[in-house]
């Protein structure tokens, strides 16, 4: 599926939303996030990278509107509507009683659209994630990677302005993960979507994103933003390029700093 969205170069992208001085404190004075500021622009592929407990999921849940900031604000340019968001969790999070196609139908169904009205779109998205023949299958009949594809298809089906992904491939094996990373980039390019992607992996973040937000824990905060200006589409050539290695090194250093360690690489 192609859309009228074209991805502009970094720096020329219109803003979608803005986190302004967002603090999130949980009961018991756990400061999950302190003074987080982030602008998300149309077409960005942003990775949130950081050690466990640095507030990555909290940031995502705040943006998703699942909770409110303790102080600060999250403002959508031009307001927010129900179909602005698509979400992919770490688990596939499918309804086991529904078929693959019915699972993908969910966002439409909640807007009151019948299955037949959106059948073509569902088939299109399933084909896009490589599951054209699995519409009638139940989730338990699929492998872990295939379930994740269904989950991605559900997030994409309404063509939302922003897609949030919280360690979506963390539970998958390396081979499946690389394949899904490649496919994700392709889907994003085709649909011109904007993605915020939470990950623990330096390599994944460098390969996928054009902006890497490195975060530190206790209190959760942003310590560095790294721009990966390598052009898309990215493939095996990028994975093995010096440019990739340089960004991976810079990102690793920032991450070590986030974890309060000294790098001993040079």
């Amino acid at each position, binding site marked *: 599926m192609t859309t009228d969205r074209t991805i502009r170069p970094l720096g020329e992208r219109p803003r979608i939303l803005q986190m302004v001085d967002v603090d999130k404190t949980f009961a018991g004075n756990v400061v999950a996030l302190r003074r987080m500021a982030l602008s998300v622009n149309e077409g960005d592929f942003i990775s949130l990278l950081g050690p466990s407990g640095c507030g990555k999921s909290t940031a995502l849940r705040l943006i998703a509107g699942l909770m409110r900031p303790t102080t600060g604000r999250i403002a959508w340019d031009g307001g927010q509507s129900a179909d602005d968001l698509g979400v992919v*969790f770490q688990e596939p999070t499918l309804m086991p009683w529904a078929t693959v196609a019915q699972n993908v139908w969910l966002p439409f169904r909640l807007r009151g659209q019948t299955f037949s009205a959106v059948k073509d779109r569902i088939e299109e998205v399933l084909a896009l994630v490589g599951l054209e023949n699995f519409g009638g299958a139940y989730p*338990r009949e699929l492998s872990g990677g295939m379930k994740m594809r269904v989950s991605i298809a559900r997030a994409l089906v309404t063509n939302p302005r922003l897609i949030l992904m919280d360690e979506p491939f963390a539970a998958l094996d390396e081979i499946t993960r690389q394949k899904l990373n490649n496919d994700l980039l392709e889907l994003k390019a085709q649909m011109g979507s904007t993605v915020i992607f939470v990950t623990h992996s330096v390599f994944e973040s460098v390969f996928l994103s054009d902006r890497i937000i490195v975060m530190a824990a206790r209190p959760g905060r942003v310590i560095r933003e790294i721009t990966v200006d390598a052009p898309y589409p990215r493939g095996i050539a990028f994975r093995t390029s010096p440019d990739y290695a340089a960004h991976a090194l810079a990102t690793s250093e920032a991450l070590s700093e986030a974890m309060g360690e000294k790098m001993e690489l040079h």
Partner: protein
Amino acid sequence: MTLADPQTSNGDSAQDVAFDVDEARFARAQRVESIARWALPVIVMVLTVYAWDRVVTLNNIPHYVLPSPGRVMATMVEDWWLLIGSALVTLQTTLLALLVAVIGGVGLAVLFTQSRFAEMSFYPYAVILQVTPIVSIAPLIFIYVENRTVGLLLCAWIVAFFPILANTTLGLKSADHNLRDLMTIYRASRWQRLRYLQLPSALPYFLGGLRIAGGLALIGAVVAEYVAGTGGVSSGLASRIQEAGYRLNIPRMFAALLLIAAMGVAIFMALSLLSHLLLRKWHESAVKREN
């Protein structure tokens, strides 16, 4: 591992044979088990009935003390129309009570999940109703409820509804938390959330409760019949047992008892089948996995 080495491939096929032997042994064990599953209970039953018959015949026990199995069967045939008529009365009470228990149990469970205050207010009373033995409530019910049928129904309902309420409430609350978040993100209404997420999540729990409730409804109906006493044109199996007891018609007591047990088994099997049909496509409990 070397490739295309004849020695190795010979080794492989030897391994294949070994594997096949194992496989065959496993298949045989499975076959034996599937036959044993129904054959063993039948054998136990036949032996028990035979032993019963021997004991009665060899000791010349009079039939008003302990009838022989043959005599019980003969009575069953002789009194068939009388007994089956009563069985239908009891069955009707049971099924009606179960139906009302489903409506009441699921209705209350939905109410409880929609309103914490409703749950706080009423859940304790549901528990009290559940833990108080029905035999102690039933006499009061028959004092205040004029209509015998309504009284019976009420007793059976009190016993049957709690497992449905408790299980369905648990099921409605156990929907996957990520799916709940997804509903929030897509701004689902309360009704949509209930219809598309909570009710399907609760289905396996509900069906588990229903299976328990089926047996309990029968117990409730029978106990209530005992308490209500004999009389009236439409008396159920419990009344028949009581009546036969007064007249020392022991074979008929046995025959009626047999029918009650058969009914209990039939209800359980029917509800298990229903559960299987509804869940076989997706739920772990009903899905056959190739191991």
